[in-house]
């Protein structure tokens, strides 16, 4: 069974994914609301896995909620919290519940989160996790033992097109491709010319690339991300544009910028789609898509 998301990737259409962040606690109302809002507007919805190493409701739980509502989930799996047994067990569960898309991530470091004294596992890394999935598809687990029922996934990974230095990141990107990644969602990009150059390089590989679009909510937030978030560089003219917005209107400007970028990426077929991360402002994603003509 080919997942709906994989069918979308293969269809040649401009693919749109977005993201759901599960709550810290058992009140899942807002998460369910966001799923309702987005499930029919995008091709698939990622569910983050203890994002920023902060303990939350699990990714697989969010994916099951999306399935129950008829949406298409992408299970984010990090290597931070589980060893190879637990990772594979989760993949078995996901497969049986028809969660058939997986995004393989190393995971943020433990000390950046809210359980700073916890043990970081990293028994596998993202490349090894991708290979484990491909091995499980052949009916063997990562220990070489027979599975009673194999898995099947559309597996992807992430890449940071503006990392500095870039070459080690690109070497790892190629290792992920060799390990069987079919799609990539990128770190947030803002400089379309630079991104187009990255795409020239990436086009030589048989993978689909979805450009990461992170909603800018203010000039301050844009500057903070540039200074603090690895691989994110918001060009000064965008920061100026946000700063020039009327009081209280920066968020509207951010939505406009995101919509404009998505439209430009689509118009020039720079990449295969976008992954929109609105970070706690999921309700504006439909607006961004409408502005982009999607």
């Amino acid at each position, binding site marked *: 069974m080919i997942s709906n998301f994989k069918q979308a990737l293969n269809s040649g259409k401009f693919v749109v994914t977005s993201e759901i962040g599960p709550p810290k606690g058992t009140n899942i109302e807002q998460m369910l609301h966001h799923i309702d809002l987005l499930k029919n507007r995008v091709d698939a919805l990622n569910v983050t896995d203890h994002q920023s190493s902060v303990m939350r409701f699990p990714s697989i739980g969010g994916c099951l909620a999306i399935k129950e509502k008829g949406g298409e989930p992408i299970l984010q799996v990090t290597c*931070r919290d589980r060893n*190879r047994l637990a990772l594979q067990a989760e993949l078995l569960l996901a497969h049986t519940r028809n969660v058939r898309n997986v995004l393989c*991530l*190393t*995971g*943020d*470091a433990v*000390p*950046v989160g809210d359980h700073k004294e916890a043990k*970081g596992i*990293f*028994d*596998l*890394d*993202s*490349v*090894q996790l991708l*290979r*484990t999935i491909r091995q499980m598809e052949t009916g063997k687990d*990562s220990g070489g033992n027979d599975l009673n029922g194999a898995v099947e996934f559309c597996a992807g990974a*992430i890449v*940071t097109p503006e*990392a*500095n*230095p870039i*070459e*080690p*990141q690109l*070497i*790892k990107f*190629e*290792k992920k491709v*060799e*390990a069987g990644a079919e799609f990539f969602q990128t*770190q947030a990009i803002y400089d379309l010319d630079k991104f187009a150059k990255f795409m020239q390089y990436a086009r030589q590989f048989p993978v689909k690339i979805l450009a990461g679009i992170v909603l800018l909510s203010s000039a301050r937030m844009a500057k903070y991300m540039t200074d603090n978030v*690895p*691989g994110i560089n918001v060009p000064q003219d965008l920061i100026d544009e946000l700063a020039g917005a009327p009081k209280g209107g920066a968020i509207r400007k951010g939505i406009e910028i995101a919509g404009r970028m998505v439209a430009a990426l689509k118009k020039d077929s720079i990449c295969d789609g976008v992954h929109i991360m609105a970070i706690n402002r999921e309700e504006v994603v439909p607006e961004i898509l409408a502005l982009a003509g999607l």
Partner: protein
Amino acid sequence: MKSITRQKPFSEVVQLLDRFDRVYIIGCGTCATMARTGGRDEVLEMKNRLQETGKLVTGWTVIPTACDEMTEAAARENEGAIKNANCSLVMACALGVHRVNSYLNNKAVIPALDTLFIGMEDSPGNFYEACAQCGQCVLGETAGICPLTACNKGLLNGPCGGTNNGKCEVDKEKDCAFTLIYQRLKEQGRLDLMRKYHPPKNYQVVPRPRIINLG
């Protein structure tokens, strides 16, 4: 090899010694002296502080290398004072604690230090972790920089997305292991090694408890 140690908070030492009123103190003349955690000065300071809390310190010594068999000779030499105490407080790394423990079966041995890592001194007083003793050395393919210890996540197949301008996501003062590995492999004309796939690590090279019999 240097065993890098840090003194436990004095309050913890006091708590560990709660049930003992007579204490013998043992320091180490090698690693703990260099790390300024269990040399002569630190042992004497500990003696004074314990006396201030009302403990009787029956004696003290700094064994040249607390982890080797000289510890036995030192234990014999100081037998009287050790017997007179109801515990020994060891200001050495865990190896020293183990060694002392093996000679003083009927007396409690209490560590005053926490053993942090196996490290090297790259500038005076600055130690970095050099080896995680993983049992499967990768240094031959990583330009002599160990990703198990120099990368917060112990990754093998390249940098995570958290690296920024050659620094680590956990601490902007710390170098990203894979930026260093990349630069040095490039200098050495061996960058192809970075493209090599490293399979999941074998964490059972010698399963715990780790014991090897060379006999």
